[in-house]
């Protein structure tokens, strides 16, 4: 397939996952922060925005600016609106490759965004709605596209973004000072019931962290996302190689995965920040490696008689 299209697909996967992830994180933290006394809100807003890597345009750390930057700011590629817009624009550029059902669900989601109120209550609603819409989009991707190369690039983007998102989610908990409950974090990851069924409701920092970081079967755990990414990278370039590696992205993801999977720590909480940093760095580097390997742009000399 065309490199340009592969790149679009990779980013559709990332942005769809990002819209979903940001909606989940915003939902749970907005609920918590709006319940805090006004004086304590600013510090929490500041912390969440830092973890999500956004800054208020006017330097004012308030609930209003958090909602704006994470939900409504179309120019910010971390906001729900910005991610949906970017996903849709990428899909528009790859429209002949993606299925029409998938394109249509993304496109109508993009248009549907305008029908929501932009206050706190409207934002709760939009978070919920986004999560639902993204589930539809994912369903369309799974069931209306062949699981060929184009699907692999989509899924690769999604897997990398998911690992990144869950690590941010864990950050928002681990740096929390104001008793953030594990129930809401697990709800946020959509894994509350799944957790209860494996750990019988023992909410220790240890068990919940372990679940979101290391569980081999829960799809939103970091380990699961990295394993998926690695499998897809193998699928993109199958063939036995006796020694070494050709694919940088696979090396990076593989390293990150094994260091999680086989790391033995007596105190998981103590090493959590290190793990999360590693995961985020791996996600960023792998994304770059995929880009330079598969999406290489024509930087070679093209002939232009006129001025560019």
């Amino acid at each position, binding site marked *: *397939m*065309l*490199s340009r299209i592969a790149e679009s697909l990779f980013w559709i996967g990332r942005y769809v996952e990002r819209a979903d992830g940001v909606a989940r994180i915003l939902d749970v933290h907005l609920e918590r922060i709006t319940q805090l006394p006004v004086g304590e809100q600013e510090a929490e807003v500041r912390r969440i925005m830092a973890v999500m890597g956004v800054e208020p345009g006017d330097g004012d750390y308030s609930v209003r600016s958090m909602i704006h930057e994470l939900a409504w700011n179309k120019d910010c590629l971390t906001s729900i609106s910005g991610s949906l817009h970017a996903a849709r624009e990428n899909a*528009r550029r790859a429209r002949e490759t993606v299925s029409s059902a998938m394109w249509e669900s993304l*496109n*109508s989601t993009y*248009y549907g965004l305008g029908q929501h109120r932009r206050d706190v209550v409207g934002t709760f609603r939009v978070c919920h709605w986004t999560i639902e819409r993204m589930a539809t989009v994912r369903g369309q991707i799974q069931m209306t596209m062949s699981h060929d190369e184009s699907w692999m690039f989509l899924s690769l983007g999604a897997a990398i973004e998911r690992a990144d998102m869950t690590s941010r989610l864990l950050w928002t908990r681990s740096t929390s000072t104001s008793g953030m409950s594990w129930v809401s974090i697990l709800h946020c990851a959509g894994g509350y019931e799944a957790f209860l069924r494996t750990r019988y409701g023992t909410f220790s920092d240890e068990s919940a962290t372990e679940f979101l970081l290391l569980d081999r079967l829960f799809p939103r755990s970091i380990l699961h996302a990295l394993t998926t990414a690695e499998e897809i990278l193998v699928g993109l370039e199958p063939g036995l190689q006796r020694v070494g590696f050709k694919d940088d992205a696979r090396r990076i993801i593989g390293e990150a995965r094994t260091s999680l999977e086989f790391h033995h720590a007596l105190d998981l909480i103590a090493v959590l920040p290190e793990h999360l940093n590693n995961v985020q760095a791996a996600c960023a580097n792998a994304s770059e490696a995929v880009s330079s390997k598969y999406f290489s742009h024509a930087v070679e000399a093209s002939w232009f008689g006129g001025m560019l």
Partner: protein
Amino acid sequence: MSDLFENYATDMAVAAAYDEMFTADQRVRPGYDQVGGVLDDLSLSDVNTRADSMARSFLDRGVTFDFAGEERPFPLDIVPRVITAGEWDVIERGVKQRVRALECFLDDVYGEQRVVADGIVPKALITSSAHFHRAVWGFRPAGGVRIHVAGIDVIRDQAGVFRVLEDNVRVPSGVSYVIENRRAMTKGLPEAFMSQPIRAVEAYPRHLYKALRATAPEAAEDPTVVVLTPGVFNSAYFEHTLLAGLMGVELVEGRDLVVRGDKVYMRTTDGEQRVDVIYKRIDDEFVDPLHFRSDSALGCSGLVNAARAGNVTIANAIGNGVADDKLTYSYVPDLIRYYLDEEPVLPNVDTYRLEEDEARAWVLEHLDELVVKPVDGSGGKGLVIGPQATEAELEELRAKVLADPRGWIAQPVLQLSTVPTFAEGEFSPRHVDLRPFAVNSGDEVYVLPGGLTRVAMQKGSLIVNSSQGGGSKDTWVLGQPQTQDLDPGQAPPPDVDSSVHTWPVSASWQDEGDSGQQQQQQQQQQQQQQDVARPGASGTTAAPTAASTTASTTATRTGEGPTC
């Protein structure tokens, strides 16, 4: 007729044109009775709701055109335009004839130019055309076809006669709306599809793909076809994605292509892959910076040389513009006689060539009665309608014509035929034209039944271009489906298997006559009853009674279930 047609007769008298649905004495013409019956049964709110839902589905599906950087849904009117089988037969033959003649003309122009030697057209017609490209003179394109896709614009005059208004053999667009309009209409006005056969339009992409493959360079065993688009900001981008998608081929931009050793490749994740046929949707001037505009970032250097070497088929061929030049248009009837030895099936609109002194003098005196068009324009750009123009505009036009007589033609103002159109809460006559699409594989010319009917949404307006507020209508050609409407070479459908299919079901909750289960159910319900009853002990008696009644009724119902 329903209320929605209340003012129709009056409006029709004002429009003073051939109305395709009603005769002058307000009788419904043959072909429209079914549609008329359906429209009569609709109330204003029905029509509004349906029109809204059609527009909504266009927006969701992204059936848009780019207007000043904004995506807008292409307006689709709810009333279809109907063409009877007899009328269509004429159009189809006329379009095929025209495409064949223009194909011969182009082959001649970029070859021996016999047509000039034989005195049919002046040499200046060719050499002065802005779209005659010397860079592609002197070779036949691989596959031997130059006009793979044509859109021949047809209008209907006051007498109801179909005439050709212009030929488009460079990059005719609009076919995607034909396909999408039909899709929307089957959901928007389903009643009208019942009990009358309408020719299908869905086979177009397959015919196009077949023709593109058929004209591939001979060396290519399994030719790779691509669609070349200028990119996402082009107004017809939607069409490019739709066609590429429906043909299952890659949609490439100029930057995805590279020419090495006169062979064309595209950059893929597996390295460079050879390309054999390019369905070109960009203008000639941008196609190859080596030969044409050197500042073009849309094309790919070396394409012309690759085509000349016969290593790639470019569809439509570069340089076709000389055939749809509006001055050439005035010669097409002669070209049909010259090349095909046939009389034109579809007449032209009378056209004054402003290069001829006598004609120019007459036209300049009657500018306020005529339509004057630039010869190489498209999309209605630069066109001046005399009766609607101001004195100043006419003066400006006069100066332009005098400065460059070759650049302009004049035609009488045609009252394009009208079709009922939903506007401002009622049905009202609006002017329409028709663009049938033809696909030429070299062996045969396929004409898509119907084509794109464009409609001027403004009352009285004669400008149907989408860039100037035009909309479209689904175009129905009545008649039994023909083999070419379906897949080429499709097998007849197999008989429906008459054996009874059963679904396996999970039986655990509805097994008939399983007394053990019934018992279990009743016990569960009693359990529930007791649970509810418990708070009742502390005073309220109403709740438990109600609960027990409900429980027993449910039990009875469940028990009855299997027997009915």
